[in-house]
């Protein structure tokens, strides 16, 4: 899976999970702002992504990350 594909999957899952139209989300978006979520809800997203990609992402992987693309990079490195 390429980084672009991983990013696309994350955007799709985030859109479903937080019920935000997919068309409103892009890779460089700040997901806290765009999804209107706090850090606890972002952990929820992490859990959803773990289930989808069959990986384990420690909480600290979200530290300092606020855009979908960087999140995709963190996931990509564990695939």
């Amino acid at each position, binding site marked *: 899976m390429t980084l672009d594909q991983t990013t696309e999957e994350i955007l799709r899952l985030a859109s479903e999970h937080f019920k935000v139209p997919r068309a409103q989300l892009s890779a460089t978006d700040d997901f806290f702002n765009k999804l209107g979520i*706090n850090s606890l809800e972002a952990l929820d997203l992490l859990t959803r992504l773990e289930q989808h990609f069959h990986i384990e992402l420690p909480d600290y992987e979200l530290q300092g990350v606020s*855009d979908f693309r960087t999140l995709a990079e963190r996931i990509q490195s564990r695939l």
Partner: protein
Amino acid sequence: MLDLRQYSCLGEALRAALDRWPDRTCLIEADRERESARLTYSQFRQAALPLASAFERAGFREGSRAAILMTNQSKWLISAYAIFFVGGVLVPLDYKLSPREQLALLAHAQAEVLVIEYHLWRALMQSPEFATLSVGTVLVTEAPAGADLAEAQRWEEFRDSREPTFVPRRRHDPACIVYSSGTMGRPKGCVLTHENYLEQCMALTSLYPFWPGVRYLSILPTNHAIDFMVGFIGPFVCGATVVHLRTLRPEYIREAFSRYQITYMTLVPAILKALEQNLRQRFSDLPASRQTVLKGLIGLNRALTRSRPRVRISRALLKQVHEAFGGELRALFVGGAFTEPSTLQFFYDLGIPVANAYGCTEAGTAITVNDLKPFRADTVGKPLPGTEIKILDVGDDGIGQVAVRGKTVMSHYLDDPELTAQTIVDGWLLTGDLGRIDPTGHLQLFGRVRNMVVTEEGKNVYPEEIEAAFEGLPVKEACVFASNYVWQERKMTGEQLVLVIHPEPGKPIPEDLAAHISSSNRRLLNYKRVGGYLVWEQDFPRTASLKIKRTELAAQIREKLGREQVAPL
């Protein structure tokens, strides 16, 4: 519990605890559903003393400063004890800060040693400011085999088998330097003494006792003053067990309650609210008939616990709810930020008292706490034993600034006598919070005197600290305010940061200004971001040295513009 009056320092009290309960479990470390470590007090000592000995051999001396940058886990507490054992001063740093901020605080604290988890060390090494790191000894925990650690050493290998010499400290010596804020501007390093902690511990445990068998679930960062006290010192001097959970995800927190039969836990309002939402959802998913029964039982429990909590009755009435929390939960502590009274009442009605507390790092953790005699959802409780509070500049409504005096109030701000003198006046610590003491002695909070916000996750954010992120905007000048400071509504909710911009006179406001602001905003950690911006068409009032006169500017804005004119980002 140990009689803490007998001890002059934390190291001495902790050492006595390790001797007193050698076979009791002091630490359990869990990561999701896995248990990664379990230590008795005796095993804890065996893990800490070789580290203390290695510190001693490396030249660490009485009063030397050692910083810890770690998530909650056993090595945090083992390292802290080893530092206290050799007479050191502990500098607990927030692992959630950016590497740049962490490096700035390490430099300010003049730490000689840094104990750090591998993933945090990796982030520090990648930081452009890494070259500024001036710590002599860096110990990295859990580094993978073959990992590049630069000049750092592996924590697991930093050991010496010789018996270390215990170095006692006096009660008024510094125990910890805890940063309450100031990561980007003027660092506020609260110097807390051994007496501050010993007194705070005695006061808190007199209201909420720990004993061997109690299991405390620690999820707030241990660098935070609350968890350091209630998730380390308090349980240890009482022979209790601390359970570390290396994730904040609500599903694992819920599991940990039942797996470890947790007795107490401290959380911030954001997590309490998440637990409330989950429970409300589960209740509403029940069939209508069961919902009716549940409502009846909750009503009955409320009536029976009006004057005080009755744990056994509540557990019998609402068995399934209590079993979901492990069946042994006696109370939740909440603090660090404002909690909605409805949330507190929701849990109390289920027979789970939430001890709502108010405090600040400068006062050594808690100032007031709800003593549950009776439960009050509308206040932050009464002052702790030994702590006095008074209200300054009282208005007609009885509201004024809360000031605190007592043995838990910090000694001073590190290297900042001017700020110390502004903050501790005639022995009274000025909290910057607005409050009123009701006729029963309970404190109610109504907002802040200072230009700051506290997030639901208990983080203090000072607008001056984040302004640098907005340098370079295509405007004449800009500054950041806490909205409740500009529009003082005497409430603790609706706090957000607002960027005030003064456009270039005579030029149209750039069309992409909002995009510029959003882009700058993203450079900040998410809890430090501004929620909106306000256009202000006049020059900011400034001092002779060109500093913004914030009080004056806030008053001008208040007079001419309303909160509704803030454009959301």
